[in-house]
């Protein structure tokens, strides 16, 4: 399994301000966000300050404040972007030739997620470090369900799944299980190690294996 697979999801394409911003405003807002992302590579989340962002961006603090009255407002946007990236990861086509067993789908997906996390310390801190800005956390759980449903659809493109529980989504639980193992690794080593990357996907697959038989028939 390739853990170093790289992905292209320019985060800036996701930003959709509520009202139309003037080009210069939009540019400033994007600068603030990208500077924040860079700063978070070396700064702990709870140490980020609006002044620091303003200083690094070469933008007056009052202007930063105008777009983002609190650091949390920046973090919320960053977190929202990550969720959108997670969805974009699912849009990328699978390597059909490498799908011999249903578990190969999850392996390919998790390799992409691990690569994404590894390239972004701020994503690890925000998602795996369980940083929470309060209002966003619930959205996170709704988001899990969206991802879970989409991952289920990915499986159904290739395999005929047995009937699955309706009151919860096993794929949503499976990705949380993998994330938890990554989170342990991030907590302990500051990153997702190869060993723990494998452990995460294996744990997720073991859980899915409770519902999906080893031999599953491919759809024609």
């Amino acid at each position: 399994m390739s853990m170093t697979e790289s992905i292209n999801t320019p985060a800036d394409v996701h930003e959709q301000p509520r009202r139309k911003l003037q080009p210069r405003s939009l540019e400033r807002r994007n600068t603030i966000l990208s500077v924040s992302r860079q700063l978070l590579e070396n700064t702990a989340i709870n140490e980020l300050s609006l002044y620091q962002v303003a200083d690094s961006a070469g933008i007056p603090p009052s202007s930063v404040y105008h777009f983002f009255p609190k650091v949390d407002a920046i973090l919320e946007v960053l977190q929202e972007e990550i969720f959108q990236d997670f969805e974009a990861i699912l849009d990328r086509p699978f390597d059909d030739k490498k799908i011999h067993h249903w578990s190969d789908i999850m392996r390919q997906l998790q390799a992409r997620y691990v690569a994404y996390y590894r390239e972004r310390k701020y994503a690890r801190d925000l998602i795996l470090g369980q940083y929470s800005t309060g209002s966003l956390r619930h959205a996170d759980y709704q988001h899990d369900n969206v991802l879970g449903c989409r991952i289920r659809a990915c499986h159904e493109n290739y395999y005929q799944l047995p009937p699955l529980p309706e009151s919860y989504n096993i794929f949503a639980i499976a990705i949380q299980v993998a994330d938890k193992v990554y989170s342990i690794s991030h907590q302990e080593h500051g990153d997702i190690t190869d060993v723990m990357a494998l452990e995460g996907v294996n744990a997720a697959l073991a859980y899915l294996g409770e519902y999906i038989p080893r031999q599953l028939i491919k759809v024609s």
Partner: protein
Amino acid sequence: MAVLPAKPSTSKDAGVPKGRRLQARSLERRLKILNVAREMITTDAIPNLSLYDIAHKAEIPPSSLYHFFPKTEVLLQALAEEVFAAFDECVSRPLVDEEVNHWSDISRILETRMLEYYQQNEMARALILGQHLHVDILASDHQHDDEMGKRIEQIYRRYFELPKLPESYNIFAIALQIADKVYAMSHQEFGNITPTMAMEGWRAARSYLALYLPECLQRRTQS
């Protein structure tokens, strides 16, 4: 672990030297603060938890509260230690040998104990499964699970011959974390761990352990 006396000494210390009396009063105040905080800590309350409000409710001058708990995090950490102590107790309570037939019986019994504690204790859910998990508490939770994992492994070894296990991490600690993660999903969506999600947490933890522990594991011949 929080150093809390089982019974706080009360007004009977009239005869003791002044220093001792102050110390007793200190402990009593600390205990009072923790008692009030325990009631006030719910999932919704954590983000807006104010030390001032706690002092007010405990009828203790804020300055005194700040003396014991200079920051909210310190108070939350003290309460998290109480939760960890409760989990330790779940693991320490002896198992009934007759109930251990398959290896998974060990984890199932221990998980059930911890689950019951979570289900009855909103403070524990808010602190450990809640969304506003503080970075420090997350770190000490991982560390505590590591220690518990090692103790659970010892229990397993008392009953079964285990195959060789990974050395750089403890599978029993990871299994605990996996179950907790599923419980957290349930807590954050429904405010508690539903029976269905309790089952899923157990399923996820058990299937993970089964990656390392075969279905038929030989029992240790002894006692």
